[in-house]
Every structure is written in structure tokens, then in C-alpha cells.
């Protein structure tokens, strides 16, 4: 078990930068998810940690050891591949025992330990089968057992669940969580699925175009996305470009009666919307993004409008099983709203509604920053 420390690591392929120099520390025993879309550099970084790819610059340390120039086989890592990468010519048990046998441990002991590890991943008694006889989820469990049996210092997972179907993915997430808790192993997982990253990670490293966008706990990432890219990746929808309006509890002329102090708004095409805390200064051009799940629609016929609500008209309503997604027109803006389907029965197109955007659901980023990558 060990802390993984990456400093100044960069990598380019054929002159194109895949990773800009970056630093990262994954604490001993923690579960770090590297999140990003394809081409973000997340897999490149994982492969560099594993020694499957050499960094152009920088160092990789596992615990106290500088492993930058060490080959994979000497790093004491466990690696799980997206496509399982089981040895097709070996039985399940021999697959799991491989790492022990390669280190010169006797056949009998290796197989005993392999069987114990298969038990841990819920595949007791499967040792004599061949990988082909197992389902995708089972194969990935074998791959996990194979990586764990050598008692590595760090467990590296490269999109281990993305080849599995939705239901099994959920089960495997729970399994990974349980195994991480039981073993206390420093774990780094690459994924493009933000729910998976949020669910599993103690911390999430958000990457885009080879740069770190944000490195935080899942909760902070969700509540305070550092920039438009992160917000967008977490599902926020662009609302439009506007100007930041700061109000310092009454200095704003004509609105001296406003009870709130230090609140920030964004003005888009004449519509003023309250923002989550923002460091942007008054008058800055900014792009606003909204999280649809933090928008609430109430039919205007139900009750009078509250002060923090805006008047709008429903333009569309779509059902996605347990969830429903509506869009409402607010001045010239289109505001998305996500709700539980059971709450959508009172909403219908063309209806007049009160729109409430929770302050934490509306973020603004300086206009050029929103498109930066």
C-alpha cells in the first residue's frame, strides 16, 4: 500500500501533446477516479503510472520508490484492462495464479492463494473453467482477482466496467467499493462515466485535452465545478452569454431594499438570474450553465409566484422512465428542468409555470474560460 505521487509528468504522441505537465498525489488507501472523455489523456496517465508507457518528462513515485524508469513487472501494481485481457489458453485458476507463478511461487501455494482470491470476488469453485465459459462480468471479476492476488502496492483500473451492461456495471461498482474497503488498497480508476466516478471515487481528477480541469472530492466537484468544461461534463447545459451583476447588499442603485447581501446575478438578454457564489467581478462577460436537476417548475395555476421564481412557459416535456425532462421559455432563454416522472403529471406543454433555479444550480464562467480546454 502506498501513496502515488506524480510530478511534472507529460507525454506527447507524434508532436501532439496528450498530457501537459501535471502533478497529482493519490493518498495511501484512497480511491481516485480519473474522469474525462476519450482523448482527455486519462488512460495515458494511467498507463504511465503502470509503466506501460514512458512519460516524456516528470517522475512517478509509488510510496518511497521512484519507478519512473522501472519496467511494469517491477512496479508491484495490479492492472485491470477494459477488455479483461485474460489469458485465453489458461484456466481461470491458472490465470489468477499467473502473477504468483511468474514471481516464482510454487504451483500449490499459488493455486491455493488464487482460489482464496476467487472467493473474494465471488467466484469460488470457478477455477477450472476457461475464461471463454464466463460472462463479461465474471471475466472482469477474474481479472480483478488476478490483479489483487499478487498483493500490489496500487491497483490501477482502466475503464474496467465500460464493456459491461448497465445492470452488471452497478453490481460491479458495489463489488469494487467493497473490495476497496476490505483491502484498503490505493486504487486509481479511469472512467468516462461521471456517475461511476462520483460513486466510487474519494477524489475525482477531471481531465480534458491533457490538462487537469479539477481535482476534488465528488461533492465539491458537483457543487463547485471549477469551470464550464467540468460543469458541462457533469451535465450542466449552456444557458447563454451575459454580464455579471454584483450586488453588495444595497450599493446597487434602486435596489436598496434587497435583503440579501453579497449576491451575484447574471444578466442575459435582460433576464437577471441569481448565481452560485462566483469570483467573477461586476460587469464581466460570462457564460451561464444550468443544472437541469436543480430547476423546479410549478404550474402558475397552483399558487402565486414566490420572489425567487421567474415566470415562463413550458415548451416541451419528455419522459425517460423514472425521470422526465421539460424545457421552459424564460424571456429569450430556454431553461431545462429535470424531475422525477411522478412529479411531472401536472406539467404540460404551453402551460404557464413558475421557474425556480436553485442558486447552486446556476454557474457562470468568464466567457473565454467556458470554452477553454
Amino acid at each position, binding site marked *: 500500500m502506498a501513496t502515488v505521487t506524480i510530478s511534472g509528468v507529460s507525454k506527447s504522441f507524434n508532436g501532439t501533446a496528450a498530457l501537459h505537465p501535471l502533478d497529482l498525489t493519490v493518498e495511501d488507501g484512497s480511491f481516485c477516479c480519473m474522469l474525462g472523455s476519450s482523448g482527455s489523456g486519462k488512460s495515458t496517465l494511467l498507463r504511465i503510472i503502470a509503466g506501460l508507457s514512458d512519460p516524456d518528462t516528470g517522475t512517478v513515485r509509488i510510496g518511497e520508490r521512484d519507478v519512473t524508469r522501472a519496467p*511494469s513487472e517491477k512496479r508491484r501494481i495490479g492492472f485491470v484492462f477494459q477488455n479483461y485481457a485474460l489469458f485465453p489458453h489458461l484456466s481461470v485458476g491458472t490465470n489468477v495464479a499467473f502473477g504468483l507463478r*511468474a514471481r516464482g511461487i510454487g504451483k500449490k501455494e499459488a493455486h491455493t492463494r488464487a482460489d482464496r482470491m476467487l472467493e473474494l470476488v465471488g467466484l469460488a469453485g470457478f477455477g477450472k473453467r476457461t475464461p471463454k465459459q464466463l460472462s463479461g462480468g465474471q471475466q472482469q471479476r477474474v481479472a480483478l482477482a488476478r490483479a489483487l492476488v499478487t498483493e500490489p502496492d496500487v491497483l490501477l483500473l482502466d475503464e474496467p466496467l465500460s464493456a459491461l451492461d448497465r445492470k452488471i456495471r452497478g453490481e460491479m461498482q458495489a463489488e469494487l467499493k467493497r473490495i476497496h474497503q476490505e483491502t484498503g488498497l490505493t486504487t486509481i480508476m479511469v472512467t468516462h462515466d461521471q456517475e461511476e466516478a462520483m460513486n466510487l471515487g474519494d477524489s475525482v481528477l477531471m481531465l480534458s485535452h491533457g490538462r487537469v480541469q479539477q481535482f476534488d472530492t465528488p461533492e465539491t466537484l458537483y457543487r463547485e465545478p471549477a469551470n464550464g468544461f467540468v460543469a458541462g461534463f457533469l451535465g450542466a447545459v449552456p444557458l447563454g452569454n451575459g454580464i455579471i451583476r454584483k450586488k453588495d447588499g444595497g450599493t446597487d442603485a434602486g435596489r436598496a431594499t434587497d435583503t440579501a447581501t453579497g449576491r451575484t446575478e447574471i444578466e442575459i438578454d435582460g433576464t437577471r438570474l441569481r448565481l452560485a457564489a462566483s469570483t467573477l467581478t461586476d460587469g464581466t462577460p460570462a457564460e451561464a450553465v444550468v443544472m437541469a436537476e436543480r430547476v423546479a417548475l410549478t404550474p402558475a395555476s397552483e399558487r402565486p409566484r414566490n420572489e425567487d421564481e421567474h415566470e415562463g412557459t413550458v415548451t416541451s416535456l419528455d419522459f425517460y422512465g423514472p425521470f422526465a425532462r421539460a424545457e421552459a421559455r424564460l424571456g429569450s432563454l430556454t431553461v431545462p428542468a429535470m424531475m422525477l416522472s411522478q412529479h411531472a403529471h401536472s406539467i404540460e406543454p404551453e402551460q404557464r409555470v413558475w421557474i425556480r433555479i436553485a442558486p447552486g444550480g446556476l454557474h457562470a464562467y468568464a466567457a473565454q474560460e467556458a470554452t477553454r480546454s
Partner: protein
Amino acid sequence: MTAPSPLRRVGGSPRRSAGPALARTGLLAPGIVLLVLFAFLPLVALVITGFVNDRSQLTTENFAHVFSSGTYLRLLGRTLLLSFAVTVVAIALGWPAAWALARHVKPARRTMILGLVIIPYITSQLLLIYGFLTLIQAGGPISYVLTQLHLTGPQDSILYTPWANFLMLVYESMPTAVLVLYSAAESVSPSVLEAARTLGARPRYVFTHVIWPLSAPMVVVNFTLTFVQTVGAFAEPAVLGGPDGQMLGNTISTQISSGANDGFAVALSLVLLVTSLLVVGVVTALVSWTKRAQSGGPTNRLTAPPRPRTRARTPELTVARES
């Protein structure tokens, strides 16, 4: 291992249904007819010729002649040994090339290189042999360069020695080796190799325990194709080999074209056929033995799945924990 598993394996090979039997027959028929007409029947005719003498009597005298003659047995031994060496050298040269081609060459360039590899295939064999002859003869380009470098005299050449024959046969075997081993290299997934390394296996261990067992079937295919083809070579030794480079193939060819004794020539062919099949069989067994030995695990014992204890009263259980 404690496996009180009542689970029945369900993975096995899919059962053939009777429905497309007609289609199967239809598809196989042309091939079968061809094989019977041009391979099986000639072979029968060959066997008959070999065992029957001029007076239409059954006889083994042709074979007795083969086995009593030191000359022909030595020739047989030399042919098998030479073919074995040619095959092994071709595989040893072809494997790294095929591996590099499959792993380290860009796809576009790969197609071009594979195209170039095939050129000897689509060139007349005699043309290749005489081309090689011009290349290596005294006063030819190679001889010229070596002479200029004072490495050999102007009249030295390997032409008309067993070496000329050997090199030509290796050269002719290369396309097969590269193509077959290329597909072997492609069948070893890169992530499986990476997995082996992350599990602590050094390069040598990766080769003996992953690459070799996964490639062995194609190596056997390669061995069979090249060995069988080389054993039957007759033009190469006849043109290039000189007095010491003769093989059984061109001896048989001479015997038949001289018309002296067809029965004896046929006996030689049959002996060559059987012994080369034996060599192929032994090599195949040897390779699959090393493959199993290196795999180490109980894979090979898997062939007999545990029988269900009772006749299937319960519906067949599948292993799907997760479906």
C-alpha cells in the same frame, strides 16, 4: 480444489442441426469430388504401382530395394534433415519479421509490405531459381562484391553445393512463414502481453508462458506447410545443388523421367510421404506438449466436465450469477 459444483457446463460447441445438412453437402461436394479425382485416386494408383511388378503380381520388392540400399536411405535422411533445417530457419527468420509487422508497422505500410512478401508466390518458380543462380554464380553480383572485398576468390561460389539449395529453399519458404506467423502474432492481443507484464512476468517468462502457447498452433501449421513442401523439392536441388546437394525429390524425378523403373520411384515417393508425415506428427506432438507444459495449469484436465449427479430432472443450471 473443493468444487462441489452441481453446475453443468453449457459453453460447449453448438449442436449441429439437421436442417442445413443439404446445404452442407452442396457446399462440400465440389471439393470432395476434386479431392477424390485428383488426390485420392492418384494415391491409390500410386500404391498399386508401388506394390505390383511388371508381371502384375503383388510384391514388396520395390520397398525392399529402397530399404536395402544405403544410398537411398542416406538420401532420404539428408532430405528430411535438410527440410527440417530449412523449415526451422524459415520460422526463426519469419517470426521476428511477422511480429514486427503486426506490432510495430503502421497499417498502411503493413499492407504494402505484405504485398511485397507475396511477390515470390506470384513469380514462376523456375524464374526464381534461375534468378538466384545468376545472383550467386561466380562472377555474379555477390561474388563480385565479395571478391572486391578480398573475402573470396573470383571463381569461388556456393553454386552447385548443398548451401545453394538450402538458401534457395529457405528463401522460397519465407512468404509462408511471414504470412502464417503474422496471423499468429495478430492473434496475441497486446493487452494480454501488457497484463502479463503488470503481473510481474519478465520478458522471457512472457514468451514461454504467453506468446509461445498462443502461437504454437500457427507454428505447427507453418511447420507442416513448409516442411511438406520442402521435402518434395526437386527443381532446386537439380538446378542449384550440384552432386552433393541432391534430394530425394529430384532423384525420384530422374527415375521417372528415365522411365527405367516406375515401381521403384513410386516406392521412394511413398517412403518419403510416410516418413515426412511421421516427422510432422512428432513435431506437432512435441509442440503441443511444450504448450501444455508451459501453461502449467489444470486446463488440459478440463476436457471431461463433471457429470451431473442425476439425470436432468431440474432444468439445466447455467453459471449466470449476474443475468
